[in-house]
């Protein structure tokens, strides 16, 4: 395979290093479960995990012992409840002698603004949030800043520049030129902010497919270090147009995650004991995968015009 295409094993082995700040972004949509599982499988350690919504994937990764710190803005199993493995590392009553997970907390717009500052190489980003809340007390990196045009004071957040950002997408070419439709979250900002970028796609396409619709490109190959092709790599989250969220999984995770032994058993069965995502998909079964397939809803085509 040409260009930057490699396996998930090799991409994670080469690009994610112990102690790195790692952002797997994707707001509900396109969550990089297969990348997260590979990080657990390779037993990376002392990572600082950044993500607006830690979601089930970070619950699993933190249960897998890869992280020392979490940077986030909303901690939950969306539509279901809490993230119990993470809570056990935060609430003193359940720590059981474990080292607590360090946390650094923002609001959604604060996290987005941090990535945006990182992507634009700015020393801070201003925003109209945090007024009269306890968040600046909880996180001293949220700081007031005065406008140079009046006495007005807003808040600022500092740039977030992950060592590695991992982005799941519908398609990319072999050089990593990546296209996404549906929810875009803060993936573009997280990718441009990062030192290194891994792209994981449902489908590898020819460069001509990308170049036929350049306004659809979210991440240019210029900032991409590796392209991994892993269909269904975002399961149990979803990929717009390809498969639905597997809600049964999100519901099932809740009771599992309340019991540390069950969590470790789950990680053994679905992560450690499997070599890769292909094995996970096979184990999941064709029937379950097929049940997630949506009906068609084509975008239609527009004309860019040929100018010679």
């Amino acid at each position, binding site marked *: 395979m040409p260009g930057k295409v490699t396996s998930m094993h090799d991409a994670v082995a080469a690009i994610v290093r112990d102690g790195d700040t790692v952002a797997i972004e994707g*707001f*509900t*949509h396109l969550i990089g479960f297969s990348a997260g599982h590979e990080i657990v499988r390779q037993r990376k350690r002392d990572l600082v995990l950044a993500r*607006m*919504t830690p979601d089930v994937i970070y619950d699993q990764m933190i249960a897998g012992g890869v992280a020392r710190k979490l940077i*986030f*803005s*909303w*901690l*939950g199993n*969306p*539509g279901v409840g*809490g993230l119990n493995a*993470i*809570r056990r590392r*935060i*609430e*003193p*009553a359940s720590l059981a002698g474990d080292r607590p997970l360090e946390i650094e*907390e*923002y*609001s*959604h*717009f604060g996290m*987005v*603004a941090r990535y*945006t500052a990182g992507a634009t190489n700015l020393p801070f980003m201003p*925003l*109209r*949030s*945090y*007024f*009269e*809340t*306890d*968040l600046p*007390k*909880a996180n001293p990196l949220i700081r007031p800043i005065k406008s140079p045009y009046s006495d*007005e*004071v807003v808040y600022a957040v500092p740039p977030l520049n992950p060592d590695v950002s991992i982005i799941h997408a519908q398609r990319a070419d072999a050089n990593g030129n990546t296209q996404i*439709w*549906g*929810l*875009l*979250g*803060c993936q*573009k*900002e997280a990718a441009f902010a990062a030192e290194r970028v891994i792209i994981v796609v449902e489908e590898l396409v020819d460069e001509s497919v990308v170049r036929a619709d350049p306004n659809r490109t979210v991440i240019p190959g210029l900032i991409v270090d590796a392209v991994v092709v892993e269909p269904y790599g975002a399961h149990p989250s*979803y990929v*717009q147009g390809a498969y*639905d*969220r597997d*809600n049964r999984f*999100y519901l099932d995770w809740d009771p599992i995650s309340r019991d540390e032994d069950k969590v470790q058993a789950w990680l053994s069965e679905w992560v450690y004991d499997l070599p890769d995502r292909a094995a996970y998909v096979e184990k999941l079964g064709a029937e379950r995968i097929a049940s997630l397939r*949506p009906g068609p*809803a084509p975008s239609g085509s527009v004309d860019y015009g040929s100018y010679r």
Partner: protein
Amino acid sequence: MSELGFTKSEMMIVAAARELARAHVCFVGVGLPNIAVNLAKRTVAPDLEMVYEAGVFGARPARLPLSIGDPTIVTGATAVVSMFELFGYYLQRGLIDVGFLGAAQIDRFGNINTTVIGDYGAPKTRLPGSGGACEIAINAREVFVIMRQSARSFVREIDFRTSPGNLGGAEQSEAIRRAGGWNGRGPSVVVTDLGVWRFDETGEMYLESLHPGATLDEVRATIAWEPKIGAHLGTTPAPTAEELRLVREELDPDGVYAR
């Protein structure tokens, strides 16, 4: 289900949906707000523009979204944008009429905690945190709250202020909001499983109506301060057959929210 023919949760969702009759653009929060707003779109507010923080304007969900980032809010929407644009160009710019939030704790002035129970550094219960709630409370023109009442949630002092309401009272809140250039005027209604609360001129909530079957004793037993009762306390109109059908058959057939 009670002998009334509907549950407390169904009444709460229906009452919350009705509040949106006069809203044009609503920012839909996670959980109960999601079902209430989707019900409003199918009943009192067919032209309501639903905004999801995930980056969707003008959503037309064909089913109840499983989360606030469900693919059904994307397909057929008017616009899908980055979260920077959603929070910056829509919310912070002041284009959102109503922000619809849930809460774990609320005080009499409508200040909200969704971060921790107990001490922030060593919490008894770690909650989800702000998400977008903090900036929604500041920048949506008004805020609607939907939550179940209990003495643990309607508290004298919230453990952490995630989202500002009327702060220490209306006078202080208005002064700070004006001086700071906030878009938002603060909370205007709290819909619970027992009744509908509004805010008086001091900025404190008062009970405007009791849901059918609910009593003032129940209300007082599920609130940690001595609540103000409206001078013209009414009874919330019961859910219509059509409202119940929509909730039970279309929006929440598994009864996740409404039971």
